[in-house]
């Protein structure tokens, strides 16, 4: 059983240095630092083109104290699958540059690079069974290119390509459920978490790195710029997303669903979360009440389905 505690983590080396160029209040760098605290130095990291890749590297600087590779937007899983395979090949032939019995391979991408353009290469890498962890930092739009709608953007959210205007009210569809798509790959470990629940997050990273085979973790990443909130509130918003059941925390080990955070019986209404964010501002205009009702209906439906899968219904 994997164990993480603050005492141990506080002694671990911070493998993502400060001085990178993330926005003030970015929760993405917090997520990466948390992951690396658990993963440790013997980790090869791959980043898909996106916010976190752009802010952590700019030649001749890098924020990464571990090996890091970026090639393009849609192929991070494929790139890391190549490095992981080469590790096995060089270990077998006794040609590793420095001997290591185990190296972690972690690929990460935003929701654009994971739900959308990178879905094919992610699916392929997971199906092939590489010993790697893929982390999606899901900030629910293409933030790096200027807040465009993605397959992860929630219903009703204003984005620069599906804006709220005189006749349209932001995105007109709910997001796809990437976590369940990854569960359908029958890989040993899939989970969903947030940076607020640091223990939950790091426990999941530990488990994901410990399994033999591919693992996937989807992490909600509140984005101060794209969502429109006070930069001080990012972590708080990730907590609220869970308390209102918009982003439940669960894990699926070898196909078995388990809730890892039990929300209170009287869940927070979705409006409480929505009203903190400028991207949902138009939903509170008179005449748009039904849109909030629709989001609440969707959240409740999804939660009901999840509780059933977790045997909690």
């Amino acid at each position, binding site marked *: 059983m994997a164990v993480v505690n603050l005492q141990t983590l506080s002694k671990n080396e911070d493998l993502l240095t400060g001085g990178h160029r993330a926005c003030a209040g970015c929760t993405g760098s917090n997520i990466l630092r948390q992951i690396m605290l658990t993963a440790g130095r013997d980790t090869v990291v791959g980043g898909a083109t996106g916010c976190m890749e752009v802010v952590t590297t700019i030649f001749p600087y890098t924020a990464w104290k571990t090996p890091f590779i970026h090639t393009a937007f849609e192929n991070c899983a494929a790139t890391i*699958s190549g*490095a992981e395979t080469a590790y096995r090949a060089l270990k077998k*032939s006794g040609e590793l540059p420095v001997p290591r019995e185990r190296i972690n391979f972690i690929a990460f991408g935003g929701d654009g690079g994971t739900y959308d353009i990178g879905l094919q290469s992610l699916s392929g890498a997971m199906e092939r069974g590489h010993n790697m962890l893929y982390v999606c930092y899901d900030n629910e739009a293409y933030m790096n290119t200027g807040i465009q709608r993605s397959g992860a953007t929630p219903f009703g959210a204003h984005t620069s390509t599906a804006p709220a205007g005189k006749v349209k009210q932001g995105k007109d569809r709910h997001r796809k459920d990437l976590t369940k798509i990854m569960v359908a790959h029958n890989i040993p470990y899939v989970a969903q978490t947030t940076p607020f629940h640091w223990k939950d997050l790091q426990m999941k990273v530990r488990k994901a790195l410990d399994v033999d085979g591919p693992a996937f973790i989807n992490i909600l990443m509140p984005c101060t710029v794209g969502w429109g909130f006070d930069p001080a509130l990012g972590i708080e918003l990730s907590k609220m997303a869970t308390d209102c059941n918009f982003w439940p925390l669960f894990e699926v080990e070898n196909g078995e669903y388990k809730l890892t955070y039990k929300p209170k019986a009287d869940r927070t209404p979705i409006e409480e979360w929505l009203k903190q964010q400028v991207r949902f501002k138009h939903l509170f205009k008179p005449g748009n009440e039904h849109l909030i009702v629709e989001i609440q209906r969707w959240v409740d439906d999804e939660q009901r389905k999840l509780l059933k899968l977790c045997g909690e219904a």
Partner: protein
Amino acid sequence: MKQIYVGLTGNEAVATAFKQARPHVAPAFPITPQTEMMHKFADFVADGVVDTEMILVESEHSAMSAAIGSAATGARTFTATSSAGFALMWEVVYIAASLRLPICMPVVNRALSGNINIHNDHSDAMGGRDAGWIQLWCENTQEAYDHALMCWRIAEHKDVRLPVMINYDGFIISHTAESLHILPDEDAWKFVGPKDLKAGYSLLDMDRPITVGPLDLTDYYFEHKVSQIEALKRAPKYIAEVYKEFGQLTGRHYSFFEEYRTDDADLVIVALGSTAGTAKDVIDAQREKGVKVGLLKIHMFRPFPAAELAKALSKAKVVGVMDKSASFGGWGGPLFNEIRSALYDLPARPKIHNWIYGLGGRDTDTKQIVSLIEQLQAIAKGREAETVNLLGVRL
């Protein structure tokens, strides 16, 4: 050295050479006519003849991406492709060269879509000619085998470190069994040698962590591109060295381009790939009739040996450049444009005309080459002719 005389298709010959080079990793995705090469290689892996880890990816884009991830660790890595598969991996083909990774890749040349066509022309590789790879072109199965051995020495040379594309014509070479000489496995291995994993950086050097592929903006990108340009400028020296060593070993001597009966030739045809074989036969017959015609067949298209080509073609009266790809909206095919540009600074230039031919695998028979030579003769006698012409098409 004792060699083995065998009958193999081009795909089988290349798979054999790659087996002998003992690569660590090979991502693969099927596309006709490259598939048979990977089938053959997979057989070698399945039988334990070679210890390569294959990654059976879900697309060519991922094949090249995985190849990059692998090669960045220092592992000897290859993949293969054709046509639309090459087009799909285009983005990452550039990245492989930008990261200076010595990946080797046969491009079994096939027409690009649309409409979809599985047969040979050179539109796939020609689209990737500016991607920063070394491009070598082969006339037959023997040349494909030889280049599939030599490519490792070129790509991995410490002063080159560039990916190498080996081009051979789909079906005409890939699927046609020919007799050829191959090296015994141990001699091939002695020639190729192990990958020097101590040279350069490795993504798996946990004691010396590196960042590969960072954001690179206005203040450094240009200099990095110049370093690629310089690496390609250095490459011919080492390609020539590898050609020389291989020639001493096997008796098969290569150079940047092959000159066939050009010594006293007034008319010179320039071509790439299997068409050169057909042209040689026609040239032999024409020589019997007293026509002073020769052939210049290019092996090394990238880097482009402009000065050497200008010198070689300077004595000709008329040069006919054959392009098996169209440059839509451009003025003539890509090979024609490069040749014509290379000859521009000569004090006295031959006349240079272009023939676009063989698109989508349209058979290029001896009659077409005869007709081309007749046109070159007429031009030599002063007849006005179009600069850019078509060969073997119904109009």
